[in-house]
C-alpha cells in the first residue's frame, strides 16, 4: 500500500509578495515541545547542550546551532525545531511537528505590517534578532521571533493557517496602498 503524503499548513496559500514584504511558509523540520519536570530545567538544558550544542532558551529568547533551533514558547516550555529531540529523561517531549504553521515575513515594511496585528513593540531597538514572544496576532495566539533585520518568523496553530495568511496579506495590502 502506498504511503501517506503530507501537506504543509499553508499549502497553496503562500508565498506572496505584497508591496515591500514577502510572506513565505517555512518547513520547520521536526518540532518537539520540551517541558522540563520540576527542578529539571538545568539538567534538561545541559542534556540539550551536549546533544545539539544549544540550551533551553530563557523566556523571550531563541537559540540556534547549525540547523537546530530552540524557541521559548511559554512558561516552562520550548520548541526544539529542525532537529530530532534527544532523549531527555527530565522533561516531557511532545511531538508538535505538524501542530504549527510557520511563516516568515521579510521586507522593508515587515515591522509596519506586524504593527497592524501584534500588540507588542517589535521595533528593532526593542525586539532584537533572537528575541521571541508569545503574543497575539489579530485574534490568534501566536509566537513571533525576529529572524533578521527585516525579517520575522510567525507561528500560529495549524488550523488557523488560512486566517494567518488573510491577516498578514490584508495588513500588508493596507501598508502597500499607503505608498
Amino acid at each position: 500500500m502506498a504511503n501517506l503524503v503530507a501537506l504543509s499548513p499553508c499549502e497553496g496559500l503562500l508565498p506572496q509578495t505584497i508591496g515591500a514584504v514577502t510572506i513565505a511558509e517555512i518547513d520547520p523540520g521536526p518540532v518537539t515541545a520540551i517541558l522540563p519536570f520540576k527542578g529539571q530545567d538545568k539538567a534538561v538544558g545541559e542534556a540539550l547542550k551536549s546533544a545539539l550544542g544549544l540550551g533551553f532558551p530563557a523566556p523571550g529568547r531563541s537559540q540556534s546551532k547549525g540547523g537546530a533551533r530552540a524557541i521559548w514558547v511559554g512558561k516552562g516550555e520550548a520548541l526544539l525545531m529542525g532537529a530530532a529531540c534527544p532523549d531527555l529523561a527530565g522533561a516531557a517531549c511532545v511531538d508538535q511537528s505538524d501542530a504549527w504553521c510557520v511563516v516568515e515575513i521579510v521586507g522593508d515594511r515587515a515591522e509596519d505590517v506586524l504593527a497592524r496585528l501584534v500588540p507588542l513593540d517589535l521595533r528593532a531597538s526593542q525586539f532584537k534578532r533572537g528575541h521571541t514572544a508569545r503574543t497575539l496576532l489579530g485574534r490568534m495566539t501566536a509566537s513571533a521571533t525576529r529572524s533578521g533585520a527585516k525579517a520575522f518568523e510567525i507561528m500560529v496553530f495549524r488550523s488557523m493557517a488560512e486566517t494567518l495568511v488573510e491577516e498578514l496579506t490584508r495588513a500588508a495590502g493596507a501598508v502597500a496602498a499607503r505608498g
Partner: protein
Amino acid sequence: MRIEGRGLCQSNTSVPFTFDGERLTGREGDTLAAALIANDKRVVGRSFKYHRPRGILTAGSEEPNALVTIGHGPQQDPNVRATVQELYEGLEARSQNAFPSVSFDLMAVNDLMSPFLGAGFYYKTFMWPKNFWEKLYEPIIRRAAGLGALSGLTNEDTYEKAYAFCDVLVIGAGPTGLMAALGAARAGADVIVADEDSRMGGRLLAETGEVDGKPGHAWAADIVAELATMDNVRLMHRTAVTGAYDQGTYGALERVGQHHPHQPGKPLECFWRIVARRAILCAGALERPVAFPNNDRPGIMTAGAVRAYLNRWGVVAGRKVAVFANNDGAHRTALDLMAAGVDVSAVIDSRAEAQALGDYKLFTGAQVIGTKGRKGLESLSIRQSDRTLRIEAECLAVSGGWNPSVHLACHMNGRPEWNAETLSFLPRDGMVPGMTAAGAARGQFSTAACLADGARVAKEVVIELGLTPSDTAMPRAEDRPYRIEELWAVEGRGRKWLDFQNDVHVKDVRLAAQENFRSVEHMKRYTTQGMATDQGKNSNVAALAVLADATGRGIPETGTTTFRPPYTPVSIAAMGAGSQGEGFAPKRVTTSHTASVDRGAPMIEAGLWYRPSYFPKPDERTWQESCNREVTMVRNAVGICDVSTLGKIDIQGPDAAAFLDFVYTNTFSTLKVGRVRYGLMLREDGHVMDDGTTARMGKSHFVMTTTTAAAGLVMRHLAWVSQALRPDLDVVFTSATEQWAQFAVAGPKSRDLLDAVVDGGIDPESWPFMACGEVDVMGVRGRLFRISFSGEHAYEIAVPAGYGAALYRVLLAQAETMGGGAYGMEALNVMRIEKGHITHAEIHGRTTAFDIGFEGMVSKKTDCVGFSASRRPGLLEESREQLVGLHPVDPAGKLTAGAHLFEDRAEPVRTNDHGYVTSVCHSPTLGHDLALGFLTNGRARHGETIKMVDHLRGVTTLARVCDPVFFDKEGARVRG
C-alpha cells in the same frame, strides 16, 4: 470671498467640487469650509431642534454647525465637519438635516414653535392616549431628529488598526508641541508627534506673528522639517489623539484616505493604539463664543476662526466684518483684516478699559444685543452704556476667551481646576499618569510662553526618562499678556444660544435651574447642552457660568462636566477595522475540510471550527434524508468522521495521575496503561464543566480529550489547578490538538476497515473496548483509540496533521468499498442521542453530576475540584430537574428542543413547569423522534406520560419518560 495674496498656499491650482449639487471651485490646501467661504456660501447646515440656518462657526474639529455629508452610495459619510474635510477634486458635499433644502427647510417651523419647546418639554407631554407614544409621537420625533443619514448600504471601504510605541507622545504640533518634540527628540527619546491637522504648526498657521524673525508658519515648517529627518521621530499628520487610557495607552484616529479621491484598497482611516512612557499634552485651546441674542446667524464666527480663514486660507466670510470680544487677543482680528484690505466696521469690547491696538472703530464697555439677517448676518445692534447703535456687518468675529483643551487630561475621571485669571479650566498635575500639559492647554496663551513651556516640559520629561536634555535656544516671539474680563451671556431679551447644534439657550439653562435641575449633570441632561457632536467644546463653560449665576453659586462650586473619550468622533468602521464579514474571529479548519467541501457538505460553525453538517447524495432533497442514510450506514456498515476538533492535552510527569484524580470527579490513577476512561470535570462551584475521555499512554503519560467547545477553557483550568491549587504536583502539559488529525471510524465494519489501513492489521485481542496505543498507519506513526460516541464498535485513529488529508481520503475510499462513507455532525448528533450521550446541550453550565445521573462519580471522592460545592444540599435534591429520555407516545409525534414539560392535564404556564427538552432527533434506527431533557425528579418518573409544549413552534406532544439510553442499553455493539 477670496482675498488675493493671502493664505499659506499660493498655488493657483483650482480644485472643483460640488456642494448640494452646485459646481464650485476651491483652491489647493483649502478645507471644505474655507472653499465654501470663498464661494460666499453662508447657510451650510441646520440646527438640530429648531432647524435654524447655520453657517461656519470655527476652523477646527470642534465645529458644531457646518456638518455635511460627503460622497454617495456606500461611500456616503454623514456628519463630516466641513472645517476638517480637506478639499479634493470631485469632492461631493451635501448639507443635511433639512428638507427640501438647506436654504429653505420646512422643519424650520419648529423655530416658530420654540416658545413651547423649552428644555425638557417632552417629559411633560405626549403621555396620552397611552399607546400613542410608539405609534404617533415617537415616529414623528424620530424622523425629525438625527443629523445626517447613513447610506443604508454595507460598508465597502478599507479601514485599519495599528499599534505604535514610543518614549514620548506629543499631542498637538503647535508652537508648544513643536518645541516639546524638538526637546525630547534632540535628547534621544523616541518621539511620536500626533497632530489632527493636515499641516503641523497649530495656531502659527493662523496668526501673523513672527517666531525667530520669520513668519510663524515658516518657523513651524523648519522645525517639522528637522523633526522629519530624525530617526527617533515619527510625525503623524491628520491624527487626532482621541482617548487617554490606562498605563500610557492612547487611542488615535488617523485620516489616511479622506483627503483625496477614493483610492480602492487604501484605508480611509487608521485607528492607532499608541503606548507611550510619557505624553505631553499640547492640544492648545479652543475659543468660546459669547451668548447674545440671535448669536447663531451664519456669518457669526469665532474670532480665531476668522483669522485662520484669512491668514491660512485667504478667505473672509463677508465684506464688512465686526469684532465682539472680552479680551485683547480678538483685536488682532481687526488688525489682520485691515492689513488685508477688509473693511472692519467696528470692534465691540465689553471691557470698559479696553484699548485699541490700531486704527479701527472701538466701542468699549459695549455689547452686541441683537443681530439681523436670517440667512446670513446683515447687521448688529450694540449697546454702549445707554445708547443703542446699529452696525453693518456680514461677519462678526466673536471671542469670549479661550478654553484650554483639557479633554484628554480628563479621560481618567480627573477634574480640571478653575483659574480665575484666565477664566478657564486648567488641568491639574497627574490627572492622567505620565501625561503633562504644556502651553495653551494649560493656560499659557502667548506664543513665547507656549514655546517656552513646550521646551520646559520636554526637559522635565527627558530627565524623568533618564536622558540628558539638549540645550535648545528659545526662539523669540510675541509675548502679549492675556487680558480678559468675564462675559458669558449678554443681558436682555431674545434667544441667546449656548449650544448651537442642540439649540440650547441661556433661558433653557435658567429654566433647568428654576425646576431644580441645579447640578451641572442635571442641567446638561435636562437641556441636552453639551450632548451634541461637539460634546460641549463650544458651550460647556458658558453654560456652566450661566447655571452658576442662576443658582447663585460660583463656577468652581457649580462644578464641571466630565469629558469622555473620544476627543473627536471616531467611526465604528475604524475602531472595528478588520472585523467586517469573516474577520471577526479566526477560522479553524480541519485537515479534511477540503475533502468535505468537495463532497458538498455544508460546513457549520462549531466554536471557531468548521465541521461538515452532512454529506448529501445527488438524490437526497433534505438534510434529514442524508442524515438518516448516514446513521443507517454507520449502524450497518462503517462511517468516517473527523473528530480532530476535540481538544487533546498531553499530560506528563510523576504526578500526572494524581493531577487527573484532582481535576476529574473520577479516578485515573487506577487506569491501566493502554486503556482509556471517561472522565467528568466540575467547576469549583460544583457544576459540570466538561467531559471527555483520557487515555493512559504510559505510566506517567496521559492524553486528555476535551469537548470542542471547552478546549480552551479546560487548558486554562488545568493551568490554574497546577499553578495555583496544586503547585506541589510534578506535572506538565501542553495542547496537542493541532498535532493530530483524528478520525472516528465507527460501525460494525470498522475493524475490517482499519485492518486494511493499519500496518500489521488490528488484532481483536489487543484492541478491546477502551484500549489505546500507538500504531503505524501506512508508514506513519499514529495512535489508535477504541472508543465510541456512536454506540457502535468504533475507533478513533490519529496521525500527524500533515497526513490528515491523505488519511481521510484513504479511509473514505476504503469505507466506500464496504458500503460505508463519511458522516457529519447531524448523524453524529442522532447517534449520540440514541445512546444518551450528553453534550453541552445537556451540560449547559447549570447542571450537576447529580442532574445527569453521574452522582456516583463524585460521591466516592475525598476531594477534587468542585467536590465540596457539589455537596451543597440544593445541588443534591430529588426535586431538581434530572436528565431523562423522552419518546413520543404516538410514534409519529414530534418532539422539539427548547420545549417545556408539563403534567399531562396541567395548563402550560410557569407555575406548572416541570422541565424542558435539550436535544431532539429523529431516530432512523428506532423510527421515531427521541429527546433528552431535564425533568423535575425525572429519574423516578420513567414510564410516566408527560406533555411537551412548544408555544413558539405550536407543537404539543405527549411523551413517555424513559432512560436516556434508547439504543443498545447493554452496550453489546460497542464491545462487539
